[in-house]
């Protein structure tokens, strides 16, 4: 199934855990330190460097682009490290989370509460995924190097619905052996 970020953000309920999709549109990278800074900004009443409401966040720290490339290798990093920040991010209206690996129960609950979705990209296939990024620009925290926030335009990035908006969790289902 092909879908774009805007349509999905308005209607996350159309996806079910386990489904494979191809996502297109604008997504923002943010990983460990960027999350810490964004949550800090929110907590002190400030405004994030990009509109969080209805947006998609990709847990990714790309390798540098070669001349002529939009981006270097750009696979997902482990989502669980962002768990501690995620409820706050979802409270501010982020609807789409993209990363790899399982989330803690309180994050799954928060995804359900805010009708968001968590999509899993395959880790370690970063050369393949770089082909889906058409444009990339740094928009915040440049001092963090690979941990800066990049605005990416992606086309048909392959993802698996890991936690849907009703809180169904592909990792939990798998753990239960069903």
């Amino acid at each position, binding site marked *: 199934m092909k879908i774009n970020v805007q349509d999905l953000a308005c209607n996350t309920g159309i996806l079910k855990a386990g489904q494979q999709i191809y996502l297109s549109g604008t997504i923002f990278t943010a990983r460990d330190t960027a999350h810490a800074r964004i949550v800090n900004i929110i907590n002190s009443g400030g405004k994030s460097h990009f509109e969080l409401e209805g947006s998609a966040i990709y847990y990714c720290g790309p390798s540098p682009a070669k001349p002529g490339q939009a981006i*270097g290798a750009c696979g997902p990093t482990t989502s669980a490290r962002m768990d501690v920040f995620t409820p706050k991010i979802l409270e501010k209206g982020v609807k789409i989370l993209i990363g790899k690996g399982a989330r803690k129960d309180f994050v799954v609950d928060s995804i359900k509460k805010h009708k968001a979705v968590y999509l899993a990209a*395959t880790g370690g296939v970063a050369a393949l995924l770089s082909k889906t990024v058409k444009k990339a620009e740094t928009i915040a925290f440049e001092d963090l190097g*690979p941990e800066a926030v990049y605005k990416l335009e992606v086309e048909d990035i392959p993802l698996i619905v890991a936690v849907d908006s009703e809180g169904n969790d592909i990792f939990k289902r798998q753990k239960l052996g069903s």
Partner: protein
Amino acid sequence: MMRTIKSIEISNAVEKLCADANYSLPSDVLESLKKNSEKETGIAKDIFNQIIKNAEIAENEKIPLCQDTGTANFFIKLGRDAQISGGNIYDAVNKGVVAGYEKNYLRKSIVSDPLERKNTGDNTPANIYVDIVEGDKIEITFMPKGGGSENAGALKMLEPSAGWEGVKDFVLKVVKDKSANACPPLVVGVGIGGDFASVGLSAKKALLRELDSHNQDDSYAAKEQELLKEINNLKIGPMGMGGRTTALAVFIEVKPAHIASLPVAVSIQCHSCRRKKIVL
């Protein structure tokens, strides 16, 4: 008779290793991935296909296999009759890492202080482990290792009475609890014996073995197979989404231990099992 090797030769060799290891998956790893993919269906199969396709793109277009081009780990066998001119081996390796990571567009993932977390900007310092051996050659093995898989490792000081069953239970618990986040299918390195400091290194060095190899001791070779079977029975599967292949291989390295101790360490490597060796 001493043989002299210039430090610049070491730096140049390291620079090339940084590129080669990050762009090309070793042939034994690719072989194992292809063989195991045949056992899978559904999402697990699709993930295997992505991994295999990714290796082709990375190699052909010189794009890193993974954006996490890792901590730069070097395992060096320094011949006692080899003399390095123009600098010491640690500086020579670090210079090669600076050039290799910058010129080849590899990600710099090292922070100078674990709490302050400021990026050093050049992926140094590298982890450099030197063993002195016979001969006049220098063998350098490079293993870039990503943070996700590294975070899944664990170490425990067991009591001797725990025995093999205790070791096995610990390894299985580590894999069960942590491997979904470590990019399976994995290579699992297990160190048994030695002490607190050396057992971790044993586990990590185990990851350097070719995937079709086994421990030279028959009893430990059988234990490697036993663990591999039980790990795959966990059905964690590629990327933790279920399937037959949770690990491609399990390697055990053993050392003598104190009468009171049974140290065990587990070092987890992701499916992007990158390594490359050069002999000077």
